[in-house]
């Protein structure tokens, strides 16, 4: 990445030059970027083509340059920061852009979500040759994709709706129903999807296309949100000329993505590491761990990459953790402790994350075999992923 930065200093149009002659897909959104990028990379590579990607999570132009430099791969899948999408789209003239979702995240250093959606809209209006794959269930994404010439709408679901109530078109109120959403004041409404994520009563998921195709979504990765990511990637693969059903089958081989859901050892304690960066992500993961009674460590930092203001902890429904053995840790464990206190969640505090994991393990009912669940925000997750065993 340092090389990418230096290269861009020498040649500000380096990303444009490196993109020439390649078929590039950009993946952006608030949550799911890294995983969807990985799933799409695997899907596009299933035919034997070389596919390059910025797998380190460095999702701004220096990371894109670093990924593309020194490879002849004709296909590239680039995770792209949502603020940077317009300029990366201009530089790469990407063939495909995947728009996942938009919700509040690091408000002290990024823009309001409506401003981001507006910047996508302007950028895609100026890119008539780009295929857009967009989540039809997120009104802000639909606004962002809205005037693009070729949009593949995907009903990929939207659990967190708290940022989507104000209509981005007219300022009216968006009403959600079983069948979709629409603005009460103007004609802005959910577009008809060409593919839909369907969940059976037994919890299994499958993809259904309006043209009649259907396929099961069977991932090694946990969580409904990853099934949504897989469907988005499958439609993007389809738009890139790869059969969507073969793409979904190829994604089954992905075991972990950049450490998310990795089980690692700290001494004789094993911990499953999970990453949630913002209220929408926490809402998903608290739902995922709800079925377990494993001890839980929650780790919160407020460094530059996390955002300096942890007020968002109060938007997270931590009340769901009532009755669990919870240990609060990370640089900002005190903010978390106050939040849990008012949420009625009994907990202990331990500033050191590794010690917090060890402490939590002692609360496990089933002894040494238990795996401690750990959810951290961005740098808190990486601290534990990289901590010495």
């Amino acid at each position, binding site marked *: 990445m340092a090389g990418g930065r230096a290269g861009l200093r020498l040649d500000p149009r380096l990303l444009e030059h490196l993109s020439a002659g390649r078929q590039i897909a950009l993946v952006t959104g608030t949550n799911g970027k890294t995983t969807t990028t990985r799933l799409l990379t695997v899907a596009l590579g299933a035919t034997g083509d070389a596919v390059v990607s910025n797998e380190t999570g460095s999702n701004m132009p220096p990371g894109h340059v670093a990924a593309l430099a020194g490879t002849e791969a004709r296909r590239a899948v680039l995770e792209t920061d949502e603020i940077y999408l317009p300029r990366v789209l201009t530089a790469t003239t990407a063939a495909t852009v995947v728009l996942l979702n938009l919700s*509040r995240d690091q408000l002290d250093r990024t823009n309001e979500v409506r401003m981001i959606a507006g910047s996508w809209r302007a950028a895609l209006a100026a890119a008539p040759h780009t295929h857009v794959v967009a989540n039809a269930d997120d009104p802000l994404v639909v606004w962002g994709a809205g005037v693009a010439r070729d949009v593949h709408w995907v009903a990929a679901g939207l659990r967190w709706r708290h940022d989507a109530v104000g209509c981005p078109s007219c300022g009216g109120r968006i009403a959600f129903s079983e069948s979709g959403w629409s603005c009460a004041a103007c004609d802005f409404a959910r577009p008809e999807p060409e593919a839909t994520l369907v969940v059976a009563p037994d919890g299994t998921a499958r993809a259904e296309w309006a043209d009649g195709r259907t396929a099961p979504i069977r991932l090694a990765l946990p969580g409904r949100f990853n099934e949504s990511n897989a469907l988005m990637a499958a439609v993007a693969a389809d738009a890139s000329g790869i059969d969507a059903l073969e793409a979904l089958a190829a994604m089954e081989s992905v075991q972990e993505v950049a450490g998310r859901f990795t089980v690692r050892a700290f001494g004789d304690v094993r911990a499953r590491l999970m990453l949630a960066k913002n209220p929408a992500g926490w809402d998903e993961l608290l739902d995922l761990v709800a079925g377990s009674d494993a001890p839980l460590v929650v780790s919160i930092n407020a460094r530059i990459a996390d955002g300096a203001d942890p007020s968002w902890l109060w938007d997270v429904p931590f009340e769901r953790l009532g009755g669990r053995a919870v240990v609060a840790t990370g640089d900002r464990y005190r903010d978390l402790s106050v939040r849990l206190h008012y949420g009625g969640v009994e907990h202990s505090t331990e500033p050191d994350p590794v010690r917090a994991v060890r402490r939590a393990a002692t609360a496990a009912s089933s002894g040494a075999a238990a795996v401690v669940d750990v959810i951290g925000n961005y740098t808190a997750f990486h601290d534990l992923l990289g901590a010495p065993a």
Partner: protein
Amino acid sequence: MTTPLRIAVVYPDLLGTYGDGGNGLVLARRAEWRGYEVTLLQAPSDHPLPEADLYCLGGGEDGPQVRAARTLIDDGTLARRVAEGAVVLAVCAGFQIVGRTFPGADGGTHEGLGLLAVDTVKPATPRAVGEVLVEVDPDVLGPLPTLSGFENHGGATSRVEGTAALGQVVAGVGNGVDDGSEGAVQGRIVGTYLHGPVLARNPVLADRLLTWALDDVALAPLDDSEVEGLREERLLSVGGNRRRRRR
């Protein structure tokens, strides 16, 4: 008190962006822990605003903020309840819309509820983002410990003469006008730019609002050890910085 204390979080769908809904939770728990019965209402913008004794308004994005102001003016309940003595805590965008005028994303000036005699404009300076410490004016709310919070706004709010400030910033920007003030207080309405949420970080302020809403009862002390640890940390981390000024 025979009827429950009613606390309403106003329009969380429009003014819920910055975690300020936590203020309602803090107020409700602190009353319940002292034995009061509480009804905590989440009041969405597509329903009439419910009758309540204490209203909390939070921060929101520019577009939804304009909609919230228009809807509250049309609804009429908040202004009526204030005239009847209800308590209001209004934060950030909420602070601006209980004032007289505020700026919209379009650059135009919008009408607020006019419950606080303040006017907000968009200054030519960058957004005020960062930790804030405020020394409260003891003549306004009585003696309170230093307030801690986090600000994130692009407004400059001036008070009409005679409207008290909540206090003076010792770190951070606050109202963003030249007098170093933060927030405003008029009757039982407190406006501020502090997130955190402000009542989570400053339980004494929460108790002051509860005292008003509970007809000036004396509240029993609570064990605030979690919050004391957080306050010490925040005051230490920010205390070294002098007051930031917009340039």
